[in-house]
């Protein structure tokens, strides 16, 4: 498995993860991921046929409530931590030409 972590895989995963890795970081990532996955492959020793995957320890159901506003309008406080705002909206670079 570890052999599969080549530079292309690292590049592809960094696109999914929205990370820009330097050449050195890419090499380190390939090495670290390879080593971790080799270790994780231990799980393959276990026969899990017929075992249902469990994501939460308790059965989790949607929690519904009436569609009424319970929180206050704290737009200004919320936006205080934003890097850039304009007219009460978050400011980002142009996304469509």
């Amino acid at each position, binding site marked *: 498995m570890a052999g599969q972590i080549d530079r292309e895989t690292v590049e592809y995963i960094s696109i999914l*993860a929205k990370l820009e890795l330097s050449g050195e970081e890419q090499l380190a990532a390939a090495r670290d991921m390879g080593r971790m996955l080799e270790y994780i492959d231990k799980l393959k020793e276990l026969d899990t046929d017929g075992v249902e995957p469990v994501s939460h320890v308790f059965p989790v159901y949607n929690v519904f409530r009436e569609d009424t506003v319970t929180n206050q309008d704290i737009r200004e406080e919320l936006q205080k931590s934003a890097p850039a705002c304009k007219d009460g909206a978050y400011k980002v670079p142009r996304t469509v030409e």
Partner: protein
Amino acid sequence: MEMFDMTAAELGKRIQAGEITAVEAAEYSLSRIKEKDGQINAFITVEEEKVMENARRVQQKIERRELTGPLAGVPVAVKDNICTEGLRTTCASRILGNFVPPYSAEAVKRLEEAGAVILGKTNMDEFAMGSTTETSAYGITRNPWNTDHVPGGSSGGSCAAVAAGEAFCALGSDTGGSIRQPSSFCGVTGLKPTYGTVSRYGLIAYGSSLDQIGPVAKDVTDCACILEAVSSYDRKDGTSVKRESYDFTSGLGRDIKGMRIGLPSDYLGEGLDDEVRKAVMDGAEAMRSLGAIVEEFPLGMAEYAIPAYYVIASAEASSNLARFDGVKYGYRTEEYEGLHDMYKKTRSEGFGPEVKRRIMLGSFVLSSGYYDAYYLKALRVKALIMKAFDEAFKKYDIILGPAAPSAAPEIGCSLADPLKMYLGDIYTVSVNLAGLPGISVPGGMNSKGLPIGLQLIGDRFQEEKLLRAAYQLEKAVGGYGIKKEEAHDEQRI
């Protein structure tokens, strides 16, 4: 009795009796921080004026008999991944370096309602990813017992603050052992509650299906008091559980005669330090002499817990940390061309190496082609781990074992080999995977003068039984490390 020697509950009692004021307690903690934290670095943020203002307000309420609980006026520290309204919350990351939350976590709100005075925000591994508090963007925290050693992690700041006597107690968070392991390394008591017991509202998520907030304190009684204050059913957390009881203190002191204690042989084998093994066996013997029935048994699945954990925790982390993109809060890179470039540069500059490592691994195991082989496989293994514990709790009330394979390692020895560091979580991660409550209680010192922690694990929702057993174990083996060594305090820190 000096304030240094008081537990939170003892201090709270004296505050109620009018012997000490909340203002004096806060002044004491702030002076202690000033004296010790230059070396320990347990805190990222302390706003003295705010602390004193809160302490004065709390004292007035105490005098008007509006606050009568055990935590009223007690100075507490809060881990920096738990939101505090108006007080910077960084997750020990550059990417949240200037984040001031507009609201408080439910657990913080409840602590404040109980009259606790928040001293500040404690250091941690960045986004709680690490076992040493060395991945913080705000410098490492040092172990108060020996400053050449790490305090453990990720709640290393909270545990070191309590161990150094800077805070009387603290909140931490535990995703794979992040309360219990540093408690063990720092000679304090730390509890990870049953999943769903403390609201995660306002806890900055790492692995949402595993994360729980819990107390770090000088003894079991304090842990029980804090848990009682912060636990609740909260509609704002979709995974919050409505428990039958939120009483964690009234059972303390009851005996453990006839209690069945299981000692997993899988936790005592290869990889466990001899001195830690001896401490566990001494703890077992102490419980036996109190009338408990203690026996070794094969728990099973122990060796699969870490690989399953790192798949699940990293997968959830990669998804949870997608929100840090330089738009709504936190750091944004200075130069960029277009939106995607801004996202990528912001994240690459804002996150440290360990966080990136886990985001990469998590993105990989969730990616098309690998999802079934890794992520779903790990979730199936999680089901098997839960089953192993369910079987164990048919025979035993409580499981006893080590909290960590060794005492605190030296600073600088862990990060170079991440896999080796991850293996140090072997006795703690399965408790998170199975959603169980676990507590680390000081169980003596090793030959180098570093604390050793004993871990007790209970079945889901059995905190009452867990705390009862922990209380008796603490009484039998000595408990709070600092008390025993108080004479050496000045040499130590």
